[in-house]
């Protein structure tokens, strides 16, 4: 891997190699979208839907977040989103709460990581 930024992310547990394979090993493209991830509106929209108890939209945004995070190599975030989506589809509200909380935590962990790595390499 040529990008130190990406190497660092790989060391922090982000599945950079898997994601890069999907990005045709185009490191610059991948790095560009990783850096754009904190600005993506999917998660804030999911939070809004959750606060409004708007489960239909919550499903759509969770689904989006699941795909996006998997694309970018945030596998644990994607995995939690998958579980949350499964609960939403089954209307399993009790577990939804638990997974949603996990998702929020994991999302912030990813953002913190990206923020720290950004600071280091900016």
């Amino acid at each position, binding site marked *: 891997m040529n990008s130190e930024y990406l190497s660092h992310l790989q060391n922090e547990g982000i599945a950079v190699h*898997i994601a890069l394979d999907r990005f045709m090993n185009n490191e610059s493209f991948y790095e560009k979208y990783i850096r754009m991830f904190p600005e993506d509106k999917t998660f804030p929209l999911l939070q809004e839907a959750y606060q409004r108890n708007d489960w239909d939209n919550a499903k759509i945004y969770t689904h989006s977040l699941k795909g996006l995070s998997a694309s970018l190599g945030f596998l644990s975030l994607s995995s939690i989103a998958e579980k949350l989506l499964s609960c939403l589809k089954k209307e399993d509200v009790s577990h939804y709460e*638990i997974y949603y909380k996990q998702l929020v935590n994991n999302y912030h962990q990813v953002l913190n990581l990206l923020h720290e790595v950004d600071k280091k390499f900016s």
Partner: protein
Amino acid sequence: MNFDNRTNLRTAICCLVGTCLLVGLGLGAWQKALIVDLLYYPDPAQGILHADLSQSNEFYWPILLVILSICVIVVGILGYYWKKIQQRNCQLIARENAFQLLVEHMEDTYLLYSLSEHRFIHISESLNEILGLSIKQVYNQADIFFSCLLPEDRILLRQTILHVMEIKKGQHLECAFQTPSGEAKWVCFHVQPIDIFDKNWFLLAITDLTTQKKNQDLLKAALVKAQEAGVARRDFLSQMSHEIRTPMNAIAGLIKMAEHAIDDPDKLQDCLHKMNLSSDHLLTLVNDILDFSKIESGKMELVKEPFSFKELVQAICSMVNTQAKEKGVFFATEAYGLNKESLVGDTLRLKQVLLNLLSNAIKYTPTGGHITFSIRQIAEDVEQVRLRFAVKDDGIGMSETFLQTIFLPFAQATQKGSGSTGLGLAITKDLITLMNGNITVESKLGVGSTFTVDLPLAVDNKEVGIQKAFSFSSKEKILIWQQDTTIACYLVKVLNSLNCSAQYCSNQEEILLLLEQAKSIGYPYTFCLLDFPREKAASFLQAIRCISPTTAMRIFLSVYDITAVAAHILPLVDGCITKPLFSSDLLAIIENSKNVPGICQQKENTFDFSHCHILLAEDNVLNMEIALDFLNQTGARVDCAENGEAVCEAFLNSPVGYYNFILMDVQMPRMDGYAATEKIRQSKREDATKVIIIAMTANAFREDREESLACGMDDHIAKPINFECLFEKMKEHLIRDGEDEF
């Protein structure tokens, strides 16, 4: 009238006739003599009665008649007794026949033994069938029978027989019996004295209790198991209520603490962090219980979906590596002989099984310990491969007693302070069984444990064989050194089948020697794959570089953790490849590193869709931007739509034949991809059925593909999108449609 009555009647008539005859004759003779005496001999002294009859022949016939009558009576009596004897004999024969029939049809075996003669005088035919003994031999030598008993049982039987003969009352005795073929039987001897004609006999009735005993043992075992399960379930419930209460109480307490620390952000943050840990633990508990109840009720269904085995293993290793690093445990992964990388199975459950075993290994291996995760292909045919996963650690290990209950549900929960539900391994075993696989464990307290899982996985027949995907145009000469020779052998075999000249060596000295030799004959190596040298890595690599400079040979190091490679090593090699080594990775590196050194070279985007108009339907902005960037690189002209309605509107308002492709996200707000496709296909435009619609969904299940095709889409690609795959699919569709500009 029956036989007896007829005989009696005949005999009586015979005797009666004889008696009448005798009396008649006697009276006749006497009367005649009296008359003669009165008429002819007035002097009684001269009468017949007083005459010397012996001198007269006239009186012989009555005597003869008397004798005859006596004979008739005797014959009658003899006939009577003869018939009686005959009748008794018939009865005896009938009884004996009936006894034989009874004995032959009884399940038990009967033996009659004479103590005075020391031999069996009767043996039922079933002896051979039940106890496998030759009847003839037992007749000849009774000891053959008794020698099949254990010495202590033999003594016991002897005592029982003597006692029975003494008290004249039957007894029974259960003991083991070993047949001549070595089969152990459990039998019951009923010993009965025979008190007839003062014979010293006893009857030995033998009942085979083997099956009954086995069933009893099974029932006993089942009862014990059921009782244990009941106890375990009770313990589990009490343990679970404790386990669930602990994090719940912690969360409740932390909320109270947080309320009092509203003005102290640091303390508040600490409370939230601890709450997070407790809720995570609680979630694991609840998930395990739910999974287990699903399996127990038979509601767990496995999905069969194609997946990349390599990606699965890499994802697992990535997660486990992070955990291992945090704990300071050394984690190594090895893959042996994996010919198929595209398989079919339930990835979610397979991942759950492997992660459970690996997490346990980390949990029970102290800092500084080692964990090895190895994957080996043990069998292969056209339709499936059989893989063996082994998780080996040098952790705390388990006792023999604990090993016996390790896969039982709830068993571990009783281990106080284990911090687990006790369901993890039970769920793992059940899932493996559902997948038609099996799991075994070997462990020694204080030494470590090895869990081995054998699983059959179907092969995705659509996969292009790993080897077919590569063809080396120029002849590569490759040298491989791996500490595990099995892996080195396998890689050499794969490479040689692809027109390479590959060779492996067993130690570092041999590497230098082979490199020197190859150079001296003017046929140097072009590629070298080395395990990371444990000692003096830099000087060793420098020695290699002295023989084969950077321009002549590429060197790659296979490592468990790229970050562990020291900075001064990296300039000496062309790159590193993470273990486990997959053939496809190695082949890709050899192919991609031909001209430019370095790992993971960017793949050149050689796809040209400059003559294509593409309508991209995607509701997520970032996903849309990513796809747009890649599509723009191919020269395609791309329009975007953020939902199904927008897609239909863009298509229906475009000139006929304008769009070649619609890349359709399935789940979108307002109108989903399926509905949009149906609307497009049902429109009466000339190009409504011609435009190529490719579904992009988060799932790669067969049902998703079928659903996409059923609603009119041409193809399906799973998200996250692998752009190379997408472009290949688009290219195939264009070729199929007769556009051969590529």
